[in-house]
């Protein structure tokens, strides 16, 4: 058994459905239509699907509700895509463990548990989504309404656990092991990962876009606080922040970030733009974890003078990082956008790249590595 490295070649560019061929456009169109109906159907009166109310079990698990149906489809996408992924890359231990955790989190934490809570008359709660991804979680009124343990998890998970883990292991612990968006991207979306743009232009766009959304999410959270403590005295403020009008901060954020950027574009356009459009360009959680990662111990180590500039790493980086540019200049690196999926190391034919959580010992090893020029340039 080979527990690392690519096992067999991938004919991505010889399959039209993986390369913006007719079928790819059809899949994208279907997904975009699906997400548009899902998010905006309510306004058109398309709330639930009564046809699915066929027996009391269907009713008990809330199948006729379009959100529950979506949860079911999402889980099917993660499980099915995960199996396909493991058939291709399952020889690698890192890939196997990672995708297994993704599937388990989706099935248990993001699907079964909220459903069970609903069945038993509790409010549903998604433990695998943290602030600022779930930005409204920090609404003081909402926090106060939660059971104490859940409130502690909501605050502690976002403010203590996530930064600590990102410092120690990089943002990968969340973005490509736990997160549902990342889980779908790495399973159902994996066949399109080579479509992610890796140009300098796309990097410039990413930096501006993702940090803009991050600041909007943080700013909106502050606005929620302001509204909660001062909203009574300032009805206009309340109306702007948390009112029922379509143009309130809450509603607009939901429409633009939650529905359009994460759903319609982020997932709908998988077959045309690659699976991480949302994570890379718009996710506030990814931006924040990225800054923490940048200060932390995770990095991709480059073996000196071994890169042949083939481009497999850059092509198969779902975040559009030009990994090759680091590899061919012998530069170990930490990029804030890197979600640590491990694919660059997996496809490298020379074993040049390695994901690492640096320890002091590794730093010493690094010193030994330096000063070994092959030619004294």
């Amino acid at each position, binding site marked *: 058994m080979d527990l690392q490295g690519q096992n067999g070649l991938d004919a991505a560019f010889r399959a039209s459905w993986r390369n913006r061929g007719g079928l790819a456009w059809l899949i994208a169109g279907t997904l975009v239509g699906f997400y548009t109906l899902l998010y905006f159907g309510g306004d058109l009166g398309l709330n639930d699907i009564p046809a699915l109310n066929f027996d009391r079990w269907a009713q008990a698990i809330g199948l006729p509700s379009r959100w529950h149906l979506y949860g079911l489809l999402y889980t099917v996408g993660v499980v099915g895509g995960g199996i396909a992924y493991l058939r291709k890359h399952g020889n690698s231990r890192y890939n196997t463990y990672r995708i297994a955790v993704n599937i388990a989190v989706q099935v248990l934490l993001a699907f079964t548990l909220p459903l069970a809570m609903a069945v038993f008359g509790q409010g549903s709660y998604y433990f695998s989504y943290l602030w600022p991804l779930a930005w409204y979680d920090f609404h003081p009124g909402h926090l106060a309404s939660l059971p104490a343990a859940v409130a502690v998890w909501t605050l502690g998970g976002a403010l203590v656990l996530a930064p600590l883990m990102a410092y120690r292991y990089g943002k990968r612990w969340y973005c490509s092991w736990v997160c549902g968006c990342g889980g779908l991207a790495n399973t159902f979306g994996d066949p399109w990962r080579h479509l992610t743009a890796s140009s300098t232009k796309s990097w410039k766009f990413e930096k501006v876009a993702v940090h803009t959304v991050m600041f909007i999410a943080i700013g909106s959270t502050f606005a929620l606080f302001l509204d909660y403590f001062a909203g009574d005295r300032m009805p206009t403020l309340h109306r702007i922040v948390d009112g029922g009008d379509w143009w309130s901060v809450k509603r607009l954020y939901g429409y633009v970030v939650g529905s359009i950027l994460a759903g319609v574009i982020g997932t709908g356009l998988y077959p045309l733009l690659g699976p991480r459009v949302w994570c890379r360009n718009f996710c506030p959680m990814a931006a924040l974890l990225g800054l923490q990662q940048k200060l932390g111990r995770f990095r991709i180590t480059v073996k000196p003078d*071994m890169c042949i500039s083939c481009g497999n790493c850059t092509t198969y980086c779902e975040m559009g990082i030009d990994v090759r540019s680091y590899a061919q200049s012998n530069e170990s690196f930490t990029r804030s956008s890197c979600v640590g999926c491990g694919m660059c190391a997996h496809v490298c034919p020379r074993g040049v790249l390695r994901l690492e959580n640096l320890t002091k010992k590794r730093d010493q090893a690094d010193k030994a590595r330096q000063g070994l020029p092959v030619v004294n340039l």
Partner: protein
Amino acid sequence: MRVVIIGNGVAGMEAALEVRRREPAWEITIISEESDHFFSRTALMWVFAGQLSHQCIEPLERDVYARLNFRRVRARAVGIDVEARQVRIAGGHDAVPFDRLLIASGSKPRPGPWPGSELAGIGHFVTHQDLSWYEAEVHGGPSRGGPPPNADAHLAFSTPDSPYAKRPVAAETRGRPAKDVAVIGGGLIGIEAVEVAHAAGLHPRFFIREEWFWPMAIDRTESTWISDRMREHGVHVHLEENVERFEGEGVVERIVTDQGDYAADAVVVAIGVVPNTDFLRSGDGEGDGDAPVTLDRSGGIVVDERLETSVPGVFAAGDCASVRWFNGAVRPEQLWYTARDQGRIAARGLLGDTVQSYARGHWYNSAKLMDIEYTTAGLVNFHVEGERNWFFEETGAVRSTNRIVLSGDRVVGFNFLGRRWDHSVLLRFIDEHRSLSYVLDHLDDARFDTEFVPPLRVPMEARLRGLSEGPAPSALPQPVAPPAV
């Protein structure tokens, strides 16, 4: 100052970048037929498979020529006029004048010596044009990544003997893609051609003259694993079999060896490469066949320590230059990282520096043979003085073979299959004259496996029993320098 570079590969491009870094105003011209854009030649196999597009294997963004003001002449150089200081170009193109010149024209495939080699359907796997030919034979054309832009733009300024000429495609004559692919030559290009044919769903035949695959780099035990793996995948591996001729009416139909004859629709001849320097001999218009710069018997361009040729101001780097190897031998070295380093050194010469010289460090390399990782460092298969070999085959969760070469009590080389290793740490062991027991105690420092792969553990009795006296048996008549990658 006018700098001209013949060759758009890694040596030429590294030199161009280095000159531009120091001299923003100099005129830099790059002459090459093969492709508009610099690409990684070692990555052709993934383009064939469809794992990468042609643009994916270009290490620099396509605007680099415009951005850094490199003039790009997409045509064949057919000679150098040393007195007039200009490069002559085929097809009536204006000659390109230079003050300083770098020849980085690379390698071309060694042609097959067998009767019938001129038949359509027989080719190589070295140039972009070879790739297009092989794709046309097996897949019927390029992947959806498409051909590179202006793929045929050089044809108007080329000659029929160019290694970048278009090759006739037997599949077009035959009216169907190739089913029976044969690959001749048990080296790295050979196994790549086999691997991609297998990935296309075929069962290629792999003809190897020697007793085992790649004897220059690996020994019998190591090689047997790789041959077994190829056979598991449905490749017909023919060891110790000599090709005698090809047969067919216009297109190749059969390949005849000393042991049998086999149907063949497409044949990849991968028996090595030779310096691409013929254009220096043929193009002076006088017909005397003398190159203006001195060539050695192999066709490599003779250079000094600064990579300057016999003509002042004319340098050579990469596969076409005969350089001094780490063991003192002087001959071309067809390797990615040495070409890159030579390009940088040659740039110092083009810039007029006089101090920098090329000094080759240790030998090291890595590769992937089918799905088996391979790392080598130091003196393996060199028959060093007082040679002993330590060998351990790991079975279980990870399969690996691990060979450490000693000269007396000193560790001098490593040959590792099945795992990833950091060669720079292995080379440090060699530099520090470490003993076998020290190296085995510290092997974890060189570990480069991906996460969750269990480390290599050598049982105590294997540490002692693994050592054997004398050199490893060789399938080659005499020790040779390591192979090109």
